[in-house]
């Protein structure tokens, strides 16, 4: 069973709440995904506005745990302040820490990320850092006090799937006991299966479901794909071979000539 900061979870899918055609479609997708954690964000509320309240009511009605993010933050102080405000609003020490370093790729500023993680851990946060697949950065984040790592497999929203399986394998191999969640870049259920087969503990995705023609149906597809990948990993996968190996035994074969 997956355990994140002491919370035991049956589902290995974390789902974002953005970009759905409507709140009811989002709620349906969350339900059919089987997820127990959804990600949310914080934005400026307009005077007299009630948008945030209506959205929050929908999220609360889903009965799932909330993981607030610092999406869109481009600096350490901005990310830390957003995390603190999220903690008060959502009443949780969990924070998905994003410190963006590049506008085009939304690649994390890994230097700022480590610094922000260290500050937030020091203030009692349980940090889920959105990072790259860089092994040394992963090590620094763990040294900063993170107990979970969330490397990307491709840029956010790219739907490109795992671009560097070797790097992902390397992180998995170096940190066998750290919960690893692939966050960002997943486009298809087969991508999710692929990273789960590598031994990752969970997948966080949003656009691949929200942007599908039928988000609810796609949410179910991802649920099944992630479960399949996990079971395959636990069962033990065959390594590819260059030459054929007969599956039917040769011993006892009749000789007709």
């Amino acid at each position, binding site marked *: 069973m997956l355990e994140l900061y002491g919370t035991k979870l049956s589902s290995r899918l974390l789902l974002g709440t953005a970009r759905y055609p409507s709140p009811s479609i*989002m709620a349906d997708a969350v339900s059919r995904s089987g997820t127990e954690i959804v990600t949310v964000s914080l934005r400026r509320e307009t005077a007299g506005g009630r948008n*945030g309240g209506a959205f929050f009511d929908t999220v609360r009605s889903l009965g799932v745990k909330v993981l607030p993010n610092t999406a869109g933050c481009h600096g350490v102080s901005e990310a830390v302040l957003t995390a603190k405000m999220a903690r008060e609003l959502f009443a949780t020490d969990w924070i998905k820490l994003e410190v963006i370093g590049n506008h085009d790729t939304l690649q994390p500023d890994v230097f700022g990320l480590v610094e922000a993680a260290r500050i937030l851990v020091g203030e009692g946060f349980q940090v889920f850092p959105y990072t790259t697949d860089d092994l040394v950065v992963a090590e620094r984040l763990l040294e900063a006090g993170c107990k979970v790592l969330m490397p990307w497999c491709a840029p956010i929203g790219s739907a490109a799937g795992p671009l560097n399986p070797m790097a992902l394998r390397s992180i998995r191999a170096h940190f066998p006991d750290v919960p690893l969640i692939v966050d960002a870049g997943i486009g298809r259920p087969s991508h999710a299966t692929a990273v789960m087969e590598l031994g990752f503990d969970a997948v966080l995705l949003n656009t691949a479901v929200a942007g599908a023609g039928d988000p609810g149906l796609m949410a179910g597809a991802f649920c099944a794909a992630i479960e399949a990948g996990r079971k395959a990993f636990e069962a033990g996968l065959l390594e590819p071979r260059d030459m054929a190996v007969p599956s039917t035994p040769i011993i006892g074969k009749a000789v007709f000539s």
Partner: protein
Amino acid sequence: MKLIVNGEPKEVAAATLEELLALMDYEGDWLATAVNGEPVHREDRSVHSLNTDDRIEILSPMQGG
């Protein structure tokens, strides 16, 4: 008094953060606030005095990935 509220200059006669929220028609328990880069918790808004040119952030939950 001149204040910067969510990045916009405002002229508001509010002595405290709580008064500012009321004057600008913010209500509900889904708001998080900060003044000059420091969070101000809900229970402190009524005693948090505002000064000219203070930068106030008023945030609420939003969809996120």
